[in-house]
């Protein structure tokens, strides 16, 4: 079974600075997807970034980028030029490429990291 671990329950960063959130996962599969989702206090879960395990190049989306280390099973999120609106819970999630029983692509989640961006 796959597991996702986020070892930083809370983090804080000053506005305009850079912060890195860590995520490790465990799987015996070779092909899978990894995601970072953001959940602001309003609780709408929003996709931040997605990484395919078969791609060596790290994904980037504007100020958000990942450091994907497949051998180490590590998937960290870097937020550059932090903004007040980045304050939220950040969840790392895993999706198997191969559909399991029931043709399912369910997400397996970490416990989240609460990020506070301070003015």
């Amino acid at each position, binding site marked *: 079974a796959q597991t996702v671990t986020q070892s930083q329950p809370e983090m804080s960063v000053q506005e305009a600075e850079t912060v890195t959130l860590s995520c490790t996962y465990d799987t015996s599969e070779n092909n899978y997807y990894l995601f970072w989702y953001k959940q602001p206090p309003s*609780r709408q*879960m929003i*996709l931040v970034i997605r990484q395919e395990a078969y791609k060596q190049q790290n994904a980037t989306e504007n100020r958000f980028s990942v450091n994907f280390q497949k051998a180490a099973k590590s998937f960290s999120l870097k937020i550059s030029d932090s903004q007040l609106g980045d304050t939220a819970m950040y969840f790392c999630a895993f999706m198997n490429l191969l559909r399991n029983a029931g*043709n*399912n*692509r*369910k*997400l*397996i*989640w970490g416990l989240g990291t609460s990020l506070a961006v301070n003015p």
Partner: protein
Amino acid sequence: GAGVSQSPRYKVAKRGQDVALRCDPISGHVSLFWYQQALGQGPEFLTYFQNEAQLDKSGLPSDRFFAERPEGSVSTLKIQRTQQEDSAVYLCASSLDDGRPRTDTQYFGPGTRLTVL
């Protein structure tokens, strides 16, 4: 276009009552997921629909939980004889999932916060 919507946003139930939670997925999305998020936790998978077929209900915690999607669009999660441990946020997500790359990305609704007294 419109995103995933859920109703009600908040529900308070007395222990033993039945509740029904509604999810309207993004129009045309094939796959629909329900997740349960306890306070301070990450979401946990409950059940999955492909169109109107419920293909995986392995995450439903007990036979008090029942979900349906009769016409392949709107879905309802029903909890019978609610217990205090059912208190959580219930998240619905949908994905287009038409076989093209990245269409399996899940988009979430705002959730329904259920409090059982």
